């Protein structure tokens, strides 16, 4: 027990740094660790060596909980064996001085000794005690479920470990942003981010695809909580091996196709644009995902048209669902599309997309690009409302803001161990509750004097709690009543009882 206390304390302390320091693989802010490295260039690499940015996957954290589980198992298995033996053997014999037990009664009964013991035993069996009559005493015990629950609770932690391992070894997580009207096919290359586990069958992901038909978001317009989200609603049509159909995906209501689940975790805007090059040909057309940078969905994004003639075109800038300006420039004042504007600056030159290196679709590599300048000599930057076009000087091309679509972020998860974990959790809760609620106790009945008076037998009844909780009322009384019988309204003068709290 002392080991358990020490290891539990260690576990609690070890869990703290992970909540204070930024962690890898914690969903709320994937960039936090990177920022921490920038802010603490000296310290961060050392902390990284101590796994302080991955506390819950670190060897020292694992060491603590594995030690805990090992010591727990070493303690629990012998207890299982003992419970098994105890539940098959007779309850232990009565102590010599029953009157010293916490609950005690002595009384006389009109029944013969054998008969009295049988009566007491029957009364106890009715109360679901395990009962044996040995010699002149009845031995009874009840509440084995307490230890059973306790052991089930502890062993459920091992089951939980199996469930967690199942997810960690075979599952995967991923994220993908899909614009309205776009489709997604479930292969790892289509994910924006894909985190497989050690033994994830990456080539064998659930075959399915879906299209985001529409996405709607509503925001609070009451001034006190202006802009708080109120509802998100994605409509998708999917195809899978099990059939096709449409589904509504909302927070707390994922798309679940054969255990691969798609959770709606975020959204943003995807302005629809058309880019024409210097020859007037359309070189790009469609929605472009812009990433929100604040709660009013001021969004950053780029539009790339590398194949434009005579020279490649790139655009970089902001999308504002509800345009406004503050001291630093254009921002959005409300997350809904009240007055959508696109504010872009243009670049010309080689976008660097033909040399084979991978590039983020959300940033523009401006090393080989020239900003397009306006008449005043500063970079051309023109706010566009829906339907408006930004024309580049010298007939280099144009960008038209056709309309506003949205995109939805899906968190994708497959965890084959979660059912095992759920079973473990239920076992844990059930075992824990049982082990705290049930009171294990022993009760003895002994014939002390076969002839205290003509036709009477003296009997002692005593009871002891094996737990620190008080004994439940009623057991002792029931046995006493059964022995005295209903015909003895006035118990004999020698009857005495006492109750005291367990002094353990």
């Amino acid at each position: 027990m002392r080991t358990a206390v020490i290891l539990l304390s260690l576990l609690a302390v070890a869990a703290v740094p992970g909540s204070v320091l930024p962690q890898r693989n914690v969903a709320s802010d994937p960039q936090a660790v990177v920022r921490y490295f920038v802010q603490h260039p000296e310290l961060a690499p050392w902390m990284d060596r101590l796994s302080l940015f991955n506390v819950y996957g670190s060897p020292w954290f694992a060491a603590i909980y594995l030690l805990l589980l090992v010591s727990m198992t070493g303690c629990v298995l012998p207890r299982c064996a003992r419970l098994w033996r105890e539940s098959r053997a007779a309850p232990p014999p009565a102590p010599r001085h029953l009157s010293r037990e916490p609950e005690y009664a002595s009384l006389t009964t009109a029944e013969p000794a054998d008969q009295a013991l049988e009566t007491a035993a029957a009364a106890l069996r009715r109360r679901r005690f395990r009962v044996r009559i040995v010699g002149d005493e009845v031995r009874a015990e009840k509440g084995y479920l307490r230890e059973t629950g306790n052991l089930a609770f502890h062993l459920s932690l091992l089951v939980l470990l199996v469930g967690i391992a199942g997810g960690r070894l075979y599952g995967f997580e991923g994220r993908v942003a899909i614009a309205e009207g776009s489709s997604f096919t479930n292969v790892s290359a289509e994910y924006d981010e894909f985190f497989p586990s050690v033994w994830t069958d990456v080539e064998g992901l659930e075959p399915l695809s879906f299209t985001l038909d529409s996405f709607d978001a509503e925001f609070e317009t009451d001034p006190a909580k202006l802009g708080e989200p109120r509802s998100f609603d994605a409509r998708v049509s999917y195809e899978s091996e099990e059939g096709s159909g449409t589904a509504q995906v909302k927070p707390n209501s994922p798309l679940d196709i054969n255990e691969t689940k798609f959770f709606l975790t975020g959204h943003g805007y995807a302005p629809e644009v058309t880019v024409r090059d210097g020859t007037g040909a359309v070189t790009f057309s469609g929605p472009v995902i812009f990433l929100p940078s604040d709660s009013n969905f001021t969004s950053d994004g780029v539009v790339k048209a590398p194949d434009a003639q005579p020279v490649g075109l790139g655009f970089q800038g902001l999308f504002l669902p509800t345009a406004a300006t503050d001291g630093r420039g254009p921002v959005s004042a409300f997350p809904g599309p009240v007055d959508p504007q696109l504010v872009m600056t243009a670049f010309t030159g080689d976008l660097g997309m033909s040399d084979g290196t991978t590039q983020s679709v959300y940033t523009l590599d401006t090393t080989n690009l020239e900003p397009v300048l306006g008449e005043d000599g500063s970079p051309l930057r023109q706010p566009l409302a829906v339907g408006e076009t930004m024309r580049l000087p010298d007939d280099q091309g144009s960008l038209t803001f056709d309309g506003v679509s949205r995109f939805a972020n899906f968190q994708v998860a497959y965890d084959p161990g979660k059912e095992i974990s759920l079973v473990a959790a239920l076992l844990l809760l059930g075992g824990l509750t049982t082990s705290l609620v049930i009171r294990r106790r022993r009760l003895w009945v002994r014939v002390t004097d076969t002839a205290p008076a003509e036709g009477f037998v003296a009997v002692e009844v005593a009871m002891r709690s094996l737990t620190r909780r008080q004994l439940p009322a009623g057991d002792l009384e029931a046995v006493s009543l059964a022995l005295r019988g209903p015909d003895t309204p006035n118990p004999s003068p020698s009857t005495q009882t006492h109750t005291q709290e367990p002094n353990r």
Partner: protein
Amino acid sequence: MTWDLLSDNLIYSAIAVYVLAMLAYAAETAARVNRGVEVTAEVTAEAPVAVGAGAPAAAPPSRVAPSSSTAGTPGARVGAVGSSLAVLGLLLNLAGVVTRGLAAERAPWGNMYEFAIVITMTAGATYLALLRRQPVRDLGAWIVGAIVLTLGLAVTVLYTPAGDLVPVLDSYWLVVHVAAAIISGGVFTVGALTTILFMVRQRHDARAARLGRTRGRYAAQLPTADTLSRVARGAHVFAFPIWTFAVIAGAIWAENSWGRYWGWDPKETWAFITWVCYAAYLHADATTGWRGSRASWFALAGYAAFVFNFFGVNMWIPGLHSYAGV
């Protein structure tokens, strides 16, 4: 008057009544402490072999002025008034919570303010339920004090107007998961305060046994260490499975909402730390040599983790639970 305004007024009224209850309890304690001194003086005068406030080892430490024997004294009457006021405060608190729910048209525990006004209710209800079965009126001043403090913070710092919630909270798991957390939190609060009183009383007893005399006039009139220990343990044993359920329900909700049942989000981490501390408490309490004061520190650590999870994690640490809005 709209529901939300009515709710705010009811909470303000509850604070006022709780303050009166706290004053009444404090007055009772003061009266009892003073009376205890008089008794000590009398006893000492009659029998120089001091059997005073903290009777030394021979007899089990007993209360100088047990509430049963002081039922008719003015102090006890003030204490009874305190309990009545606490009941009234609890009813106003309840009404404030119900009207808040009517104003928001949902379960009224969707943000920090609402969490605070509901947890004061569960803590108060736990104390009053306990009072019917155990001689723990000494707890009253502290419990009601904690309630007043929490409600005061709620209406000043945490207040937010009644309204709808962000979509991710639109789930029946909010009702289940947060309700379980609030119930266990209320009971843990009673458990923690009882534990502190137990430790005060136990130190007093130990000092009295060692020195044969005592200075702790307040500690001397508390319920016996046995009683306090039993009540504290009972509260923790009652709340622990509910807290376990709250964590499991949260995990199930997280699986249904974010795609993983456990992700070491700061809120989850601190719920885990709380759970582990209380688990350590239960183990320590069953370990010879650790029972009593030593085990109590684990319970207090668990409660500290719980409180930090509510205030600290919500206000200072960014995470997925950050929408739990101030």
